[in-house]
């Protein structure tokens, strides 16, 4: 596999990642959201593998395996179980309607590319063109967290943001040190479990997972 082919493949996967980020932004059904999240993880795994193979960085294989295990298998499975137990497959309400959200998203992508352009000039890695995409997907996931009303999609947005960060790290510097990646992976896992526990508590308290109810907690 030559430099150009792998570089093109990584670019393709990066485009795929961005597309999934947009899809998540526009998706109303939680079940599909989880599926999209898993697909995003799969794209991430594939791109990490390609980078690892091309550059011969051994620790990237480990992080690819970790991504596969955590973000494609374990966390989607946990989330599936969670929504089964909580009985929430229904459609998701958003604060801003979906077309408007998409427009804001496009603005963010342009902003991210403008921001990444000078950095990409400096970087001489295989994947330098993808930095803008990585940042765009971070920002899009953040936007998703803001516009969703229910707790579960917010958590998925949070996890997707971590995907974007991971992709940024791989594309800009061939990944973070393995220790850091292990730590981040553990954090994400533990975070998911804690969120899961909180969901039950929130529902117990308010009979709903709608975070509007939590506004009552504000002190006056």
């Amino acid at each position, binding site marked *: 596999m030559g430099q150009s082919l792998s570089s093109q493949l990584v670019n393709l996967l990066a485009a795929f990642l961005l597309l999934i980020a947009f899809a998540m932004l526009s998706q109303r059904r939680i079940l599909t959201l989880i599926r999209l999240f898993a697909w995003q993880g799969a794209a991430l795994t594939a791109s990490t593998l390609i980078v690892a193979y091309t550059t011969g960085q051994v620790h990237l294989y480990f992080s690819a395996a970790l991504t596969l295990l955590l973000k494609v298998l374990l966390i989607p499975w946990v989330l599936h179980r969670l929504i089964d137990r909580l009985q929430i497959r229904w459609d998701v309400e958003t604060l801003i309607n979906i077309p408007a959200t998409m427009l804001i998203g496009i603005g963010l992508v342009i*902003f991210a590319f403008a921001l990444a352009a000078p950095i990409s000039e400096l970087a001489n890695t295989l994947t330098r063109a993808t930095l803008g995409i990585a940042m765009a997907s971070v920002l899009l996931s*953040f*936007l998703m967290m803001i516009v969703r009303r229910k707790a579960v999609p*917010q958590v998925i947005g949070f996890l997707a943001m971590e995907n974007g960060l991971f992709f940024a790290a791989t594309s800009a510097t061939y990944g973070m040190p393995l220790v850091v990646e292990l730590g981040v992976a553990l954090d994400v896992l533990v975070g998911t479990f804690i969120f899961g526990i909180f969901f039950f508590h929130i529902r117990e308290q308010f009979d709903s997972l709608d975070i*509007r109810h*939590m*506004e*009552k907690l*504000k002190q006056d």
Partner: protein
Amino acid sequence: MQAVSSPLSGSLIVAAAWVAIAALSLAPSGNAFFARKFAFPLGTLAGLALTAFGLQAIWLAPEQMTLPLGLPDLPFHLRLDPLAGYFLMLLGAVSAGVSIYAAGYFRDETAGRLALIALEYHLFLASMALVILADDAYLFMVAWETMALSSYFLVTTDHKLPAIRSAGFLYLLIAHLGAIAILLCFGVMSGGRGDYTFDALRAAELQPRWATAAFLLAFFGFGAKAGMIPLHAWLPEAHPAAPSPVSALMSGIMLKTAIYGMIRVIYDLIGNVRWEWGMVVLAIGAGTTLFGVLYALMQHDLKRLLAYHSVENIGIILLGFGMSMVFVGFGHPAAGALGLIAALYHTLNHAVFKALLFLGAGSILHATGLRNLNSMGGLIHKMPQTAFYFLVGALAISALPPLNGFVSEWLTFQTALQAPILKNGVVRSLLPLFAATLALAGALTAMCFVKVYGIAFLGRPRAAPTQVQTAQEIHDAGLMERFGMAWLAAGCFVLGLFPTSFLLMLNRVSVSLTRQGLPEAALESNWLWLVPIEPARASYSPIVFLIVIVCVTLLTFILVHRYYHGRVRFSEPWGCGYSEQTARTQDTADAFGQPIRHIFGPLYLMQRHMPAADDAAPRFSLKIHDRHWYWLYLPIARLTEYVSSKIALLQQGKISIYLLYSFLTLIALLIFVR
């Protein structure tokens, strides 16, 4: 065995022993066996050992050590020089008396509370030892904060009472304000070089502007802990709230660690003292002295009164220290050394007699359940031994010869009398004014303790028996308590009667700190005559004084016995024609302060209830408020509340809004770093 015999490792072992005692006190057992039986006596032994190591260190060259503790690449540095040795001696000696007292005082606590008190108490002692031993800003701050936190938990021992919780909060707040200032001061001194060992800070040459900033920060930060005005507000709240041995430790020793820090930072680390700094210290010191004693006179809560006297005595120490700085700044290091010695001597003296007085107050509280002087009276009959020890403390704090308070105040006066050597006319004429403040404060202190002693121990009980435990239940202090008080009372005598040996000791501290000691003539003072400058100018012999006092007393006694004996008859005193004499016809604590209240009226914020002429049950009540609350603290509190209420508008309670905040911040930062 060289390592073990050095005072530094010895002191470190003592600190470790205190930590070990603290840990062992928590050992689970039914009745807190260790904490009840062994913790405080063992702590006393450790204190005595520390006294010995401190004394030894005063005469040795400075010693340094690096402990492999702390963060990676940031080990703890320790150093023991004569100044630190002197303060270790103070810590050890005073804490020994307080600990043996505490062994008796806390006897009746429940197991859980006792274990916690023993834990916090010994951690408190260990952290104070480490504050004194620290040789880098990092260990200093860690120990300093440990000290603040452990004493906070000791103050809030009775945390179920709201008043005590708020007292603790006030203490913690001011302690942290001070800690921030100290931290900033270290930052200024290191000047961004990132090396925070005291060696590096000592070597750093600061620009005059930055040196002044460092001085002001250090003065503010340590002053907050020492209780100078206007940062004294926590003292009169926290001392009554804490159990008495804890008040004794806090007032006797913890305030002194602040004095230690001030001297260490200003003389040792910043160096190149300017006389303007000295004037700032003097002005604040004089204000603190006068304010402390005037408010002490108005108190009827015994421990509050003692707390205000701590404020006053910190002021006296600051006066000596400030004069020292003025003299050094003007290039008269010998006079400066005398001022420093006076301040250090008063530091030790105050530690001894104030701890003794707080222990006495603790015994009264323990026996009668009373803190209000207006309800006390006649305690000398029920607790004669406590009465004696309290009298020693009262005489010492009133600066009466031959006890210790007199010596250090006299040395401070001698420093002030050096003023004519100064060239600057304004300063030369101001110094005697500060000395006059000190004289006024001394007289008012004596008046205040006449009031305390007369009201509490003499006369007849003022409260009805229903309010107090019945007369039979009032008992004298137990054996351990008496040991503790006797130790400190003996300290008052030793420090008062043999000042020359302490003068030589302090001369050594001063030489090691400023490379300048007292003139030759002074160093030739013998055990009998204390000569601070030269024999022609002033000298003082406490022993001769004592002999004269004893002789006059004996002579009077013999004469009375011989010529007046046999003509005494016992009968009811004449009732001035009134048919009924009750305890309420006696003078009260509030009544005693009335003349001062009249003269210094505008200083106080009074809330008085005057009974009307035809009142069937007339009761006079008086509350004195501290004006600082209304001028300084409450406006700041209100401003803070106003600003926070505006900032609280950010809090909308919607998660999306919060996320939006971080999102916008992220975007703004990204644009900024582009």
